[in-house]
């Protein structure tokens, strides 16, 4: 009879034709109330383990090995095993686990009702109670909208509350915090640890970067190619790693830079904003009177949470929306007097790299995606276009992929790199970099950071970085505007802001993005 809550023995998951198994005779055990974090890059095997434990391996996956839940006898790990313990599956909101067009509240209630075998009304009450217990969580009414119109952070609170409402013995957290704004990720982590202390459930967390284990503590397993390469307490592994792979994994985490403040006055001004005001979707609007300029080769980060007005400001700066007041000069042209088609012509010198995977047309091929700006904006011979395209693809490391492959078949990381390739051939004066690292594992994040830095060095565009993570902002920009509730609350050199933040909100953003070595979860910082 096992003393463990979950015992996985010799679990192997293979796909026909694959070079190596996704999981290679993996054995592990989780005790009651324990926190076990599985860390590794995408495809290391943690996803396959989660699928098997959740009872939903892919159709073509061949699963072998045994699972033992609590004191029940070991069973072969086949599809849809009936665990003898209460288990909740907690996916991240970016995996889009809910139907995008149906009320999130209704879907979460249905999940709880089915798991608890309870009436819907009772399940909704359980969800409401769970949300009420979580500090910082939205109200149930806030979730009564389709996920399409909810921010990922609100969805995450709902998913967490629904998982807790099931009163689990084991929580399978599948990248549950991945891609969330650092402030929200930390608040959710606090809520997770508080509920674990209250309910005593065990957590099995699949993580793709080293921040999460540092926050959750507990035991850490580092996986590569379906095998465990290192195991130990998360706090020890955060500082001392024995295996070279683990060392590389931790080194890939963004580290704080200690550069001196750099002036953003480099080349010619790309954007000059004079006394602009941002419309805010509330009846009372405060005056902003925002005046600044962004020069070629410089980088400005707009930092804030979802709904802070970063995107509104970016859209105004690009002439996609009109500011209620003020004047914007883009590349020496006052965009306030430009006709729509002339503005579109001006925007040919703008490139985007965004963290959303639907920014590229999924029907297009890799070659078409990269060559489209050249084909539509310039009258170049076909071989010249092809040559620019191939060089850009080579620079981002996608040259080995078949060019006629459609974007829909690419991974999130490849789509992100394809956006960079498209930006490179556009030779832009301004690049809008919107949450570029969202949802990527530590290695992919490191590669993306390098690609973007390389892009900036070689092509020299001005960077307008939109992010909620100060660490990301610091790696890509020198200047910053901290935004909250549609207003700029602090601005200046990022190094100065980090050294001496003036607003409490800025301090909370800095602490939420604190690197791994400051792994202790900081107390909640009062907002405002």
């Amino acid at each position, binding site marked *: 009879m096992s003393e463990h809550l979950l015992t996985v023995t010799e679990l192997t998951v293979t796909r026909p034709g694959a070079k190596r198994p996704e999981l290679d005779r993996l054995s592990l055990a989780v005790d009651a109330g324990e926190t076990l974090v599985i860390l590794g890059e995408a495809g290391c095997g943690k996803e396959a383990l989660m699928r098997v434990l959740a009872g939903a391996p892919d159709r073509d996956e061949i699963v072998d090995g045994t699972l033992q839940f609590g004191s029940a006898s070991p069973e072969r790990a086949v599809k849809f095993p009936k665990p003898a313990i209460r288990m909740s599956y907690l996916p991240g909101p970016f995996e889009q686990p809910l139907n995008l067009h149906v009320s999130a509240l209704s879907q979460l209630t249905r999940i709880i009702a089915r798991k608890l075998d309870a009436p819907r009304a009772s399940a909704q009450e359980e969800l409401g109670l769970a949300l009420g217990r979580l500090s910082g969580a939205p109200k149930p009414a806030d979730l009564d909208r389709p996920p399409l119109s909810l921010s990922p952070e609100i969805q995450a609170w709902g998913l967490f509350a629904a998982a807790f409402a099931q009163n689990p013995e084991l929580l399978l957290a599948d990248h549950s915090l991945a891609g969330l704004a650092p402030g929200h990720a930390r608040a959710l982590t606090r809520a997770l640890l508080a509920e674990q202390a209250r309910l005593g459930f065990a957590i099995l967390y699949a993580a793709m970067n080293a921040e999460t284990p540092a926050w959750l503590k507990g035991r850490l397993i580092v996986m590569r190619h379906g095998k465990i390469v290192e195991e130990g307490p998360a706090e020890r592994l955060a500082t001392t790693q024995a295996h070279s792979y683990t060392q590389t994994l931790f080194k890939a985490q963004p580290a704080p830079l200690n550069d001196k403040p750099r002036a953003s006055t480099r080349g010619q001004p790309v954007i000059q904003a004079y006394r602009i005001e941002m419309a805010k979707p509330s009846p009372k609007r405060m005056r902003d009177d925002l005046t600044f300029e962004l020069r070629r080769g410089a980088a400005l980060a707009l930092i804030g949470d979802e709904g802070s007005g970063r995107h509104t400001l970016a859209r105004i700066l690009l002439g*996609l929306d009109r500011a209620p007041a003020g004047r914007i000069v883009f590349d020496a042209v006052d965009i306030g007097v430009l006709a729509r088609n002339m503005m579109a012509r*001006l*925007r040919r*010198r703008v490139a*985007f790299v965004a963290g959303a995977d639907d920014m*590229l047309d*999924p029907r297009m091929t890799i070659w078409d995606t990269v060559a489209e700006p050249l084909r539509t904006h310039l009258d170049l011979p076909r071989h010249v276009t092809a040559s620019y395209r191939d060089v850009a693809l080579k620079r981002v490391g996608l040259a080995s*992929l078949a060019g006629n492959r459609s974007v829909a078949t690419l991974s999130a990381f490849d789509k992100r790199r394809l956006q960079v390739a498209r930006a490179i051939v556009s030779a832009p004066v301004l690049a809008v970099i919107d949450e570029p690292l969202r949802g990527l594992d530590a290695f992919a994040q490191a590669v993306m950071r390098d690609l973007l830095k390389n892009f900036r060095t070689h092509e020299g565009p001005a960077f307008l970085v939109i992010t909620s993570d100060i660490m990301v902002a610091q790696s890509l920009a020198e200047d910053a505007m901290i935004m909250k509730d549609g207003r700029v609350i602090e601005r200046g050199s990022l190094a100065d802001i980090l050294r001496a933040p003036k607003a409490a909100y800025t301090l909370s953003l800095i602490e939420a993005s604190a690197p791994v070595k400051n792994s202790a979860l900081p107390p909640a910082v009062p907002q405002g």
Partner: protein
Amino acid sequence: MSLVSTNEVPGPTITLGGVIRAVGFIGLGAIGVTVGLSDVLARAPADAVDYGPPLMAPSVHFPLGTDVLGRDMASETLHALAVTVTNAGIAAIVVVVAGGLAGFIAARLPYRIGFLLRGIGGILGAVPALLLAILFIGLANRGLAPFAAGLAAAPLGFVRAFDRARALGQSRHAEFARATGISPGALLRRDLTYEFRDSFLSIATRALAAVTIVLSTVSFFGYGATPPHRDLGLMIAAARDVYFDAWWTAAIPAIALALFVLCARLAAGLDEGERA
């Protein structure tokens, strides 16, 4: 979820839908070959009366029998099939151009004009295509029946294409493209290229099935094909008086018509589409 793509393009997988479509296309191909060789395969010329005794049941000499005027049913069915397929082909092209293509272009017109056209398309789409076809033939002439049938079946395709184009125009990737200065013309070109490349055959075969039924029914009522260029609808209509005594006179062209429509429907993946 894997963040790193493999270097191999995912190979085509065999699905039930794919098998159904393949069967449909094989059937359409066989019908196309038969139509192409109809003059060779038919032993009697079109509308050759008194080729055999009237209303002779299927026999060794006349495998599909003869009709009331002594025409060889096998030869007549082949000629009628050729007329039906040719006219349906023309009508299907009209549906694709006046339906799918025009819908995509209309969606890019100024908002009010686009939605006015969509409204007109919606109203016309609510009227049975058969009645519209009869109306259009009355306004033009019987020789233009294929064009009339195509225009009658086009409104639903127009509305469908319009809505699809609007959805594509509001997608994130289109917004991203516009924000980087990609012109509306380039976006339309992109949509047409990819939408029609991926779904042209499906749209065309769906239209083929719809217009074949419209054209045959129009001919059955006497507003379509005229002798000597009889189509399958007209053959069935000609057998009305003798059908209960000589079943083969109507059943043979009806089976040919049913097979053609079935193949077109299968090729379209059994998509209902612009059902007549």
